[in-house]
C-alpha cells in the first residue's frame, strides 16, 4: 500500500470513531504528533487506532496498563494531547 493510501486509511479510522472523545484525540494526534514518530511507533499507533474506543480509552487514560513497550510510549504521547 502506498503512503498516501496508508495515511488516508489511518485518518478515516482516527476521525470516524464511535466516540467524539476519540475523534478529537486521535485526529489531533495524527496531525500534530504522528509525523514525528519513529517507524516502530507509527506501526504501534496503527494497532492502537484499530482498537475499539472502549478498549483504547482505558489505555489512554492510564486506568489499564499496556503490556507492549512501544505502544506504551505512543500512549504516553497520546495521553498528553490536550484538546482545546
Amino acid at each position, binding site marked *: 500500500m502506498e503512503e*498516501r*493510501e496508508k495515511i488516508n486509511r489511518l485518518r478515516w479510522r482516527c476521525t470516524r*470513531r464511535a466516540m467524539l472523545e476519540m475523534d478529537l484525540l486521535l485526529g489531533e494526534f495524527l496531525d500534530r504528533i504522528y509525523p514525528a514518530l519513529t517507524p516502530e511507533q507509527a506501526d504501534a499507533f496503527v494497532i492502537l487506532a484499530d482498537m475499539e*474506543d472502549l478498549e483504547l480509552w482505558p489505555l489512554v487514560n492510564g486506568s489499564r496498563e499496556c503490556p507492549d513497550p512501544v505502544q506504551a510510549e505512543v500512549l504516553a504521547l497520546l495521553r498528553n494531547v490536550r484538546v482545546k
Partner: protein
Amino acid sequence: MSKLTIPVRKFDAVIVGAGGSGLRAAIQLSEAGLKTAVLSKVFPTRSHTVAAQGGVSASLGNSEDDHWHWHMYDTVKGSDWLGDQDAIEYMCRKAPEVVVELEHFGMPFDRTDEGKIYQRPFGGHMSNFGEKPVRRACAAADRTGHAMLHALYQRNVRANTQFFVEWMALDLMRDDSGQVLGVIALEMETGEVVAFHSKATVFATGGAGRIFYSSTNAFINTGDGLGMAARAGVPLEDMEFWQFHPTGVAGAGVLITEGVRGEGGILRNSTNERFMERYAPNAKDLASRDVVSRAMVTEINEGRGCGPNKDFVLLDITHLDPATIMKRLPGIREISIQFAGIDPIKAPIPVVPTCHYQMGGVPTNYKGQVVSDDGTPIKGFYAAGEVACASVHGANRLGTNSLLDLLVFGKASGDSVIADIKSGEIGLKELPANFADFTLARLNRLNTQTGGANVNETRLELQRTMQKHCGVFRFKDMLVEGVAKILDIEKAVAMTEIKDKSQVWNTARVEALELDNLIEVAKATMVSAEARKESRGAHVRDDAPDTAANPNGRDDVNWHKHTLWHRASNALSYKPVIMTPLSVETIALKTRSY
C-alpha cells in the same frame, strides 16, 4: 439513454447502517432467512451507538412500581405533544419485550441484589402520570450502547448477516412509480461504485449532529440517510427540532451523561445556588433536557455563569461517595480529567448545553415503513433509529428513549420487510436503464471541479452558521438571515473541489460527499425553524414568549402539526399529529411543566 454502467449485486434486503437500529433490523431479516446486506462507513461496533452511556428505558418495574402507560404519558409530555401517540404507545408497550430479548442476546445489564436488571432514574421519566421520578433506565455500567452493539453484532454473526464495512452509500435508487430499489454505494478501499439492488432498503444511518459547531456527536454523524432521502424526493419531517444536551463539557462538546444527575449530581451557578429548584421544583436537576438547557442558558444570559467569561455552569458531584462515582460512573471521571482538566471527585465540572440529538428525520409510521406526505408507505423503503421520525420523540426526546427506539423500530422495520415480501407487496423490480446516472454525474462533477470551494472551510462555515442562527435560543431576524446564509453556503457545496483524484482510500472525496448530505440537513433545519413561529420542546423562539394564551410560547391552534421539508422546492408542507393511540385514550393537550 444511459451508457454508463456499474456492477450490480442483488439482495433481499439492504440495510444502510450498522448501529443499534441497523443491527436490530438485520437480526430480524437474517434470522428469517432473507439474504441481507448491511453497509457501514465503519466497522459495526464502531458505530455511534457505542457512545450511549446512560441506558435504555423500559417499564420493567424491577426497583419500584412502573407501567408502560406511565412511560407513554412521559414520552408524550416530553415530546411537547408533537409525538404521534400510536407510535409512542407501540414503543412503550414493546419496551419490556425488546429489553428482555436483548438480555437473551447476551447483554450484560447491571443487576440488583436479587439478580434482576438494575434500573436508575433518568430525566423526564416519572411514575403515575408525572408524579415523581421513577427508576426506568436499564444500563450496563456507563457502557450501555457499547454492550448493546456487541450483543447485537454477535447475534448477526450467528445469523450470517453479510457486512460491507467501510462502504459509503451515496444515493437511493427509485423507479418511476417511486418504489425504492436499493442504493448505490462506494467502497473506500477500492473506490469502486456498486449498485445494491434489493426488494427492501432499510435506512439506519443515525443522526446528523455535525451540522452544529458545538456537538456531542462523533464526526461520523453527517446525516447521510437524510441527504440520500432528500435527493430522492422523500420529505424530511420536523427537522427544526434538535435536542441540546444540558451537560456537554464546556469547550470540547464531550458529553457528561444525565446518569450523573440520576446518581445525585447537582447543577450550580456562580453563586453556588442549585438553580434548578427555581425552574423545576419537582423534578429539579432531573427535569426534561430542554427545560434544563433553557434554565442553564438563562442563568448564563443573566450573568450567573461561571469562569472568567461567565459562559458555563457547574455540574457538582463532589458530595457523592467517591466509591459510588468509581463504581457507577467511572468513565465520567476519566472524561472530565482529559477534556476539562478536572477530577470531579474534587471539583465540579464546567458544562454548557450542546447539540445532541435529532428528533426529526425520514418520516415513518410505527411499523418502520417510510411514508409519503399523505401517510401511505413508500414501497420498498424502511427506516429506524435516529435517521427516522416515527414520530416518538416529537419536539423533544427523553433520555434513554433513543436506544429503546432503535430496538423497537429496528425490529419493527425488519418485521415489516418480512411481511411485505411475504404478501407480495414488494419484490425485486427491474432497475431503470439510467439507474446510475445521477450518482455518477455527482462523482464526475466532484472529480472535474476546478476553481471550487474547500471542503473543510465550507463545512466549518455551515456549522458556525447553524450554531449562531439556529441554536438553543432562536431569534426571528437571525433565522431569516440564517436561511439566506445557508442557501449561499449551498452554492459553495455544489462547487466543492478536491485535489486528490485517486481511487483507493480517497478520504477527501468521502468528506466532500458527506458535506453534500450535511447541507441538505442544514437547509431543512433552518427553513423549518424559521417557519415555525412558536416555541415547542427543543425549538425555543425569542418572539414566541410565555403568555396565558400560549404557555411556554406553544401555539397549539396554529402549530400543533408536523413539518415536512421538500428539497426540490425548498418549501414546507404540514401534516397532523396522530393523537389516537392504538388501544388507550388520547393523552390530551396540556401545558408542559415539570
